[in-house]
């Protein structure tokens, strides 16, 4: 299989995976390229008995993880949510914008997770894969999938609680 064949078959998969893992939209073309540059280098070593999606997802995880370390990437994602939140706080209810705002908040929480938890959480909770499929995609024992999922949920809940507390503070000045 050539690089171009893999690219043509898997472009969408890689794009969507990176987006779900929290790579900002603006950085996606570069991140997709990063993935396929690595594919290009490693293609000769690829064991064809493994699923190509599993291989690509592993690479995408590393690329997303590296990009998360970039302050630019974090800021990019959050700027959009901030923009909409601020603008809409004073405008009439707009469901589409509200939904986008919620998605931005949720994505920020997910992106703050360690990459191992993030991957499990995204695949299971967002993409709706079964736990067995998640285990296969990430080449993990199923017990590890469950434990990471539990930790990710706990983290998500904590962040939502914290946001709610901050909202209360912002509205009332009450820090309790």
């Amino acid at each position: 299989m050539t690089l171009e064949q893999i690219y043509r078959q898997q472009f969408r998969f890689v794009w969507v995976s990176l987006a779900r893992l929290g790579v900002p939209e603006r950085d996606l073309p570069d991140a997709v390229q990063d993935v396929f540059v690595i594919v290009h280098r490693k293609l000769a070593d690829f064991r064809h008995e493994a699923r190509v999606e599993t291989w690509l997802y592993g690479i995408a995880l590393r690329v997303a993880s590296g990009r998360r370390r970039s302050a630019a990437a974090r800021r990019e994602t959050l700027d959009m949510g901030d923009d909409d939140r601020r603008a809409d706080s004073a405008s009439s209810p707009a469901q589409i914008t509200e939904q986008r705002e919620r998605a931005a908040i949720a994505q920020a929480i997910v992106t703050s997770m360690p990459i191992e938890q993030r991957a499990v959480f995204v695949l299971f909770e967002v993409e709706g894969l079964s736990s067995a499929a998640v285990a296969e995609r990430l080449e993990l024992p199923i017990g590890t999938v469950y434990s990471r999922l539990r930790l990710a949920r706990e983290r998500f809940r904590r962040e939502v609680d914290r946001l709610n507390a901050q909202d209360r503070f912002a509205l009332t000045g009450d820090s309790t």
Partner: protein
Amino acid sequence: MRRWIEDDALPPERQLLEALSSRDVEPPDGCEETTFAALLARLDGPGGGGDDSGGGNGGPAAGGDPTGGGAPIGGGATAAGSAGLLKTIAPGLAVGMLAGAVFSGGAMLIAPPRGTPSTFGQADAPAAERSVPPTRAVGATGESSKTTDGEPVTQGASVRRLATGSNRSGAVGSQAEAGPATPQAPDASPANAADPGAAAVGRFVDAAAPTAAPREPNDAHAARRSQLAAERKQLERARQMLGRGQAAQALGVLTAAEQRFPRAYLYQEREALAIRALAKAGHRAQARSRARRFLKRFPNSPLAAPVQSYAR
């Protein structure tokens, strides 16, 4: 094990997860091709795939020989195509590097290359007119990333900003109010078709590097400053109205600004603000088509990211 959303997630968690799951993350039309062209350019570049940005973050998959020598890209036709592609890409890259856009303290400064007025105007030309895909190609986008890389923004602080909407104006608004340091990319509209490259450079020079400004009569200089100030004032007014939820009024101000200054220095800022105002006023279809036009025309604009969300 059941998904959290179907199990014991609390209502706020459920809402956030539903929003996240329904988020549109599909690649935009044409992106597959532009990204592939850029990928070929990287693989054919110095070292044949030696660019390790993003791939070099550890782990077995990220390793590899930085000197290249990777797998075959495709058939003979593809290889020939990529070689041809590079020939046309090179000048675009040079333009991007020469443009030398830098961000400083939230405001963008663009220092144009001396003696290259006719090429500088290509930096924000429509994608169809440039041979370089927007990714990694041109100064504005790439350079901005470099600068923000260095900022110590913590995730906790970022989440907090999302929650409270504190101490920053919106992405579009904040860039629109960047003031004298805000760039104005050359307007490629028919109205500006006769605008020579030198004039475009003059605008940038005025914004960023006064010492490099071409000579011009004092009255012309004063008129330019006066127009810039008036434009900025109108944008600020519209932005404040938007912040108060007066989207229709903001649109009125922006429409008046369009009539008064058809060839605006702050054209991109005004357009981005208008797109946002249209969306907030409930004119989603108009906002979408205008956002798409904006992105087609200014794919490397620093305002492209906020505008993008209205293009969907």
